[in-house]
């Protein structure tokens, strides 16, 4: 368990980066985790150069979901919209740097789901869409 709650995860959990909401987000979306009731909203502002100049998240959830949301917002600042659309499940797992089992996977990916649903303009973004097997 010590490995699971590593120092950088606890740091992001205790001092979340980009916490809050935006007044005029270009994209905003809230996603839910049916397993534990966690909620995360991600707001994104895109400037005239098509780059993310402001991003925030707000929500409640476990240390893993909060830390991954904090890390995700930090990662996408300054990125182009196209680059944001390319972010994958694997990118998040790499950011976290700890083994994530099937049960905690939804916690780890909740902020990415909200982000993707927002930028793609869909109600639900299924990150495991192609995982038929």
């Amino acid at each position, binding site marked *: 368990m010590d490995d699971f709650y590593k120092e950088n995860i606890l740091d992001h959990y205790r001092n979340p980066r980009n916490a809050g909401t935006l007044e005029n987000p270009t994209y905003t979306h809230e996603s*839910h985790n*049916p*397993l534990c009731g966690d909620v995360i909203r991600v707001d994104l502002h895109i400037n005239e150069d098509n780059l993310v100049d402001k991003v925030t998240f707000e929500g409640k959830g476990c240390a893993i979901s909060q830390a991954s949301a904090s890390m995700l917002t930090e990662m996408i600042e300054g990125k182009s919209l196209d680059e944001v659309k390319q972010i994958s499940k694997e990118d998040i797992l790499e950011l976290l740097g700890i083994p994530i089992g*099937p*049960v*905690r996977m939804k916690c780890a990916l909740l902020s990415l789901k909200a982000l993707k649903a927002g930028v793609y303009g869909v109600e639900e973004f299924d990150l495991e869409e192609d995982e*038929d*097997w």
Partner: protein
Amino acid sequence: MYDPNIIRQDFPILHQQINGKPLVYLDSGASSQKPASVIEAMNEYYRRYHSNVHRGIYQLSEKASAAYETARKKVGRFINARSWREIIFTRNATESINLVAFSWGQTNIKAGDVILTSEMEHHANLVPWQQLVARTGATLKYIPVSEQGYLDMAAFDEMLGPQVKLVAITQMSNVMGTITPIGDIVQKAHAVGALVLVDGAQAVPHMPTDVQAFDCDFLAFSGHKMLGPTGIGVLWARKEILADMPPFMTGGDMISRVTFEGSDWNELPWKFEAGTPAIAEAIGLGAAIDYLNELGMPNVRRHEIELTTYAFKRLGQVEGIRLYGPPEPTARGGAIAFSLGNIHPHDVAAVLDGEGIAVRAGHHCAMPLHDKLGLTATTRASFYVYNIPEEIDRLAEGLDKVRELLG
């Protein structure tokens, strides 16, 4: 090499005496026996990692969840589904068909629509449609079946039309044994825009199944007829159809979000699995599929053709017997209904029981078919992976005894 004498050793229940005689179990069409590996898999779960699935953040629950979901994938592969998300666990084939009749039927069937089924359906694939048409004002029509148990495909062609929204058909009759031409039925039904539900309760345990080759839309079957436990069944349907269907039962595990005002549904397949599922039973079914894969479904089918061929020859020698269904073993499964003169099937079965032989007597949940054949009941012997020709000899000798006693 497929050797039923070796296979029998894996089934603890078969090694016992009934009325002082070795058990001859010829009622697998009603429910099959279980190999030790299935019983052990369920035992292992209860002894070592029982816990609820899907929400536990602890090792036992993660293991239980993984085992439950692995069983789903085994089922999906076994019938060649496109995705494990197309596999819904239910209690049995009956519940699977009811799920479709309520969830899909209630939203897609309207007054004036027609549902086609056949005259040789099990009540499970008949009563839910009678109820659906009563609720919606649609019409239920029956594809005729010949004396020998063949579907009247010319009549089917004539019954098809734009009003037909669903064809609900057995893949293998549990009375006549008939294997129906699913591929042909699906092609013709799709041509008029109708969907096809296949009742695979008898066929899936006994022959290779490939839903992509069938090209059907729904497939229902039960675990307990295919070496698995009771209490677990399967509904397979195309993902895009399932996605548009409302939930059948509602409650825990099938939601993504609940407020006092309303609820959102979980993803497939969990949208259709409200409440704590039959976890041990799903794991048992997974073990049953492992066992069947080990045997090889083409071998299972071949063994059954051999037994059916022998049964028609050997039972055909019994005086006064009438065997129902197609006489051609490759056109049918190994469930053989018969009558013996005017002796009531209950008397036949009771005398056979005295000889240690288990067969079924009655209407086999197909009363309309028996009405059509002018019968109140029949006796049925049905075979599976562990049956041997010697048991058919025992049945034939038992029937001679019945005749001596009551004929």
